[in-house]
């Protein structure tokens, strides 16, 4: 079937698309991802952080179907929107892998750079790089809320770097801070939206 969009429907589509992300599930996933990467790093397993996206991405669909769709329903966006999302998500994923490689490089170089004063500030760099990804996500899903998460990541990254915290600790703290509003949004959504049955009224 031809999927020709009607003219001037962009505003409606944009509103519907933005509403799609307002349940807080993505927020919780983002916070959990940042926290888990930090935790792996904290226990000297930075390579394990690479498995975090591999664990979160497949969990997204089942979580959404179990928690959100019985309350909000199911919607599939246009092919054009899905294509745009895929290319942006790919970009974000590559950028994330870049951050991770940079972080792992730092991890292996930390002994050599340990005496260098700039090393303490570099510890906050992964969080600051993840802040850039949060900004990209905010643009992708048209949700300014992710700019707040970007500010949290950048703020905790910079402050943690100044105070000499390790990258893992910085990310774990940032993830924990992000988890508070993220969980609150998800809980509020679930409380305000009972499971809907299609059964006859």
């Amino acid at each position, binding site marked *: 079937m031809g999927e020709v969009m009607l003219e001037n429907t962009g505003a409606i589509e944009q509103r519907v698309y933005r509403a799609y992300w307002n349940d807080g599930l993505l927020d919780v996933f983002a916070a959990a991802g940042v926290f888990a990467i930090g935790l792996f790093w904290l226990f000297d397993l930075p390579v394990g952080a690479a498995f975090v996206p591999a664990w979160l991405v497949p969990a997204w669909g089942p979580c959404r179907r179990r928690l959100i769709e019985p309350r909000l*329903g199911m919607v599939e966006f246009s092919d054009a929107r899905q294509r745009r999302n895929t290319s942006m998500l790919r970009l974000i994923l590559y950028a994330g892998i870049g951050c991770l490689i940079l972080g792992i490089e730092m991890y292996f170089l930390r002994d050599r750079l340990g005496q260098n004063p700039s090393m303490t500030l570099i510890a906050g760099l992964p969080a600051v790089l993840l802040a850039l990804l949060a900004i990209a996500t905010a643009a992708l899903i048209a949700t300014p809320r992710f700019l707040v998460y970007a500010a949290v990541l950048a703020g905790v990254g910079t402050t943690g770097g100044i105070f000499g915290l390790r990258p893992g600790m910085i990310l774990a703290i940032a993830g924990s801070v992000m988890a508070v509003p993220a969980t609150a949004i998800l809980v509020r959504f679930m409380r305000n939206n009972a499971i809907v049955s299609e059964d006859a009224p």
Partner: protein
Amino acid sequence: MSSVALDIPQIDALLHEPARLRLMAFLAVVKRADFTYLLKLSEMSKGNLSVQMNRLGDARLVKIEKSFEGNRPRTIYQLTAQGRNALRAYKKNMTAILAALPD
């Protein structure tokens, strides 16, 4: 005396009803959506939504797929090509009528 009414484009009464027009507008911007999603988005009652969607389905403007997920019924709606054309014609005709109105 010739009637000026002849110059006014015909408006599709099925689409002109506000609830159905809203539902068609929602479906025009997505690929497909289920009953629960339309219920939340439109803030209509289950009964009203069901009736309106069935009318659109009967007119072949919307494709209706019924299935079960576990033991829960699930109905998915998708605008047909005929539905898109009808909506496009409605928009064109309404625009023409409104443009002809005096300020």
